[in-house]
């Protein structure tokens, strides 16, 4: 009896090895186990939303035949989740959401991780950055505002959050320089709770302007409480047709607040091919497009190779701005 079982289990084992080995031999690769998309933050934020939107689109469009789970791994401004992904080297079943923080954490010396540690799969969406003032304030354009700032930098206080060195901050520094004022003289007031503190502070007259992402101010602008001086998009955004871009105001500055997805390092060409093709199908699907629409996000799909070129450029720009004001020594 025992002998028989041994033969049988041996056969089963051989069959299993053959089954797992077969795809690796072939040209094509497919996920072998459930797929895990890591949101390196708690539920409810941008990373979580993008991970869950991907989960929804990939599942509903049947682009993968394994189940997908989203795991929240908050901590270290993304570093905890990304480190976890880094540890999955060569495994094609792990993806993670990312954002400019992967550049900024490294630039500011908070983390050793860079985008070069991963297979950068695709840039997916963008929100745009704005500078907003109170609706009854005297400044109507970027030029007027920065002229006033040049005259008396100590009378202008700019709200930013949750910490210096992020996209909001870098936008303002770049603009200040472009409009001919001194980035070092800008008085930033840092609000750890971001919009929830920045907007009341602006409405209460404690600060004169905020640099923030468009979505956070949109409803306030519609309600007539805030005015946006300019937006960092290449063309005017459909929600606010009257608001000029920075480009229109003579500053060559297009600055997306983007979010993308990356995979573990050390993937085989077959694994890379599978994911680039799958994501390409996903961003063209109806489910994906509809979800972006409901969330109010702009499609900013950039496939892998172009994504890396884009990141190289962003890295240079941010390094420059942050060195200017002494955040990078």
């Amino acid at each position, binding site marked *: 009896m025992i002998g028989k079982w041994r033969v049988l289990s041996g056969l089963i084992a051989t069959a299993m090895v053959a089954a797992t080995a077969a795809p690796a031999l072939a040209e094509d690769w497919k996920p072998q186990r459930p797929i895990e998309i890591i949101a390196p933050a*708690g*539920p*409810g*934020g941008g990373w*979580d*939303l993008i991970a*869950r939107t991907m989960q929804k689109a990939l599942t509903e469009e049947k682009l993968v035949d394994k189940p997908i789970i989203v795991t*929240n*791994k*908050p*901590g*270290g*401004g993304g*570093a*905890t989740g990304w480190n976890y992904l880094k540890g999955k080297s060569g495994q094609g079943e792990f993806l993670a959401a990312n954002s400019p923080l992967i550049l900024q954490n490294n630039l*500011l*010396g*908070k983390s050793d991780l860079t985008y070069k540690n991963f297979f950068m799969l695709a840039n997916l969406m963008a929100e745009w950055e704005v500078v907003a003032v109170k609706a009854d304030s005297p400044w109507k354009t970027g030029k007027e505002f920065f002229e006033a700032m040049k005259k008396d930098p*100590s009378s202008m*206080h700019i709200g930013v959050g*949750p*910490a*210096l*060195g992020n996209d909001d901050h870098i936008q303002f520094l770049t603009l200040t320089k472009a409009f001919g004022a001194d980035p070092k003289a800008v*008085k*930033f*007031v*840092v*609000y*750890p*709770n971001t*919009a*929830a*503190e920045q*907007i*009341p*502070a602006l*409405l*209460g*007259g*404690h*600060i004169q302007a905020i640099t923030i992402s468009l979505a956070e101010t*949109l*409803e*306030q602008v*519609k*309600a007539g*409480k805030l005015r946006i001086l300019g937006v960092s998009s290449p063309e005017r955004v459909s929600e606010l047709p009257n608001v000029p871009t920075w480009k229109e105001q003579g500053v060559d500055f297009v600055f997306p607040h983007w979010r993308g997805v990356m995979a573990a390092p050390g993937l085989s060409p077959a694994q890379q091919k599978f994911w680039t093709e799958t994501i390409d199908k996903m961003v063209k699907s109806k489910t994906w497009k509809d979800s972006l629409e*409901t*969330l*109010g996000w702009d499609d900013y799909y950039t496939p892998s190779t172009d994504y890396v070129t884009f990141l190289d450029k962003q890295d240079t720009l941010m390094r420059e701005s942050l060195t200017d004001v002494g*955040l990078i020594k």
Partner: protein
Amino acid sequence: MEAILHNLGLGLEVALTPNNIMWVFIGGLLGTIIGMLPGLGPATGVAVLIPITYGMNPATALITMSAVYYGAMFGGSRASIMINTPGDASAIVSCFDGYPMAKKGKAGSALAISAIASFVGGMIGMVCLVFFTEPVAAMALKFGPAEKFSLMLFALTATITLSEGSILKGFIAMGIGFMLATIGIDGQSGAIRFTMGIDDLQDGIDFLVVMIGLYAVTEVFKNFSAMDVKYDIDAKSIGRVWVSWPDFKKSIGPMLRGSPLGFLIGVLPGAGGTIATFLSYAVEKSVTKKPAEFGKGAIQGLAGPEAANNACSCGALVPLLTLGIPGSGTAAVMLGALMMLGVRPGPILFEQHPEIAWGVIASMLVGNIMLLMINLPLAVPLVRLLKIPQRIMLPLILGMGYMGTYFLNYASFDFILVSLAALAGYMLVKLSIPIPPMVLALILGGMTEQSFRNSLTIANGSLSIFWEQPISLAFLVLAAISLVYALNKQKKLMKMPSTPEEEAD
């Protein structure tokens, strides 16, 4: 005004559909249970629920999530009272007198009064919300960084004066709390402070982890030596979940003081339940004729803060109503879920979707009543927990404490932190250094520092901003008064011969 009543009527129509009432009940019950587990607060509860809400219409989804939020607040103090383990920061104060009450065999009264006070606070808060939204919203906008700093300074000094024994020890505790709060990345300068090269400390120390260590695990240590001691508890009185008339009479004042206080603090941007509960406790202790009873099971010390906490959550709706800005982390999670449903929160939400916005407000009214009905009967099986022998109960608390710690950040490093906090807690108890100032300083430390720096940035480096702004000056004066009052009290105590009450606990 009329418009508000009209809208409230509209909201009640939405809230009172059988389907929504059912979800308020399910959400409230679920929230209460989640809130009772250490480490699982309202934010986690709401997050867990997000997938369930996908199929719902937005109004029902938001109503369900609010019910969980509310339920978790009711439930949070259950764990404080029964096992000295606060579920979230605003339930810390409920440990001060709730747990001693339970130890004295008055767990039934403690649970009952906490549910009643939560209910009263919630109701008064709702009334304030309906009638005073406009004026308080205008007041909240005047609240800048200088005012915020002075308010926190006042909350801290008031808490020091609460502590038993010497004021100096209170200051030492506060100092330790502030020092712990500086650990991690500083948002302003980007500097990595005091992490000793440990990456896990970059995000700072999670005060909830420290709290679980200081309260729950320390409690296990303290009781370990007396594991086989039987408490002198009257078995009959345990099962009764009701408040005696004299106890209730004592609680009326605290509830009526705590509610408006909590509401006002809730309106202020970023202040929240922690300050509201600590301040309410401070108020009650200075108002009472027998301050020595506080910390040893005074029902007033439980009723006031519980009412303040729930009124505070109503106050936090004011910025949401007037500006479309979420007042708390939990509200932010709710808004994230709403965005998935295609509803964008903002000031126009109330014009575009009044049925959602007012439906939620009305459902909180309904939820308040329902939670009182859920929580009073639920207390009956809960008080039975006290009959469990210590040798079973203590390991259970320990296990729950460590489990809750892991649920907070899913970080195994927190196990080390919680153990260190527990050891520190044991030492602090032995040295009779009060723990509350330390916890409060740890929670408020980051905010205090940042609002101090923001004030100076806005004033271009001049300290005078703190006394030139009238609201800020008022808080500074209050802080000074509370300090002088406490010093005075201490002097009197020193002159008196030591009473039996002075014995170390």
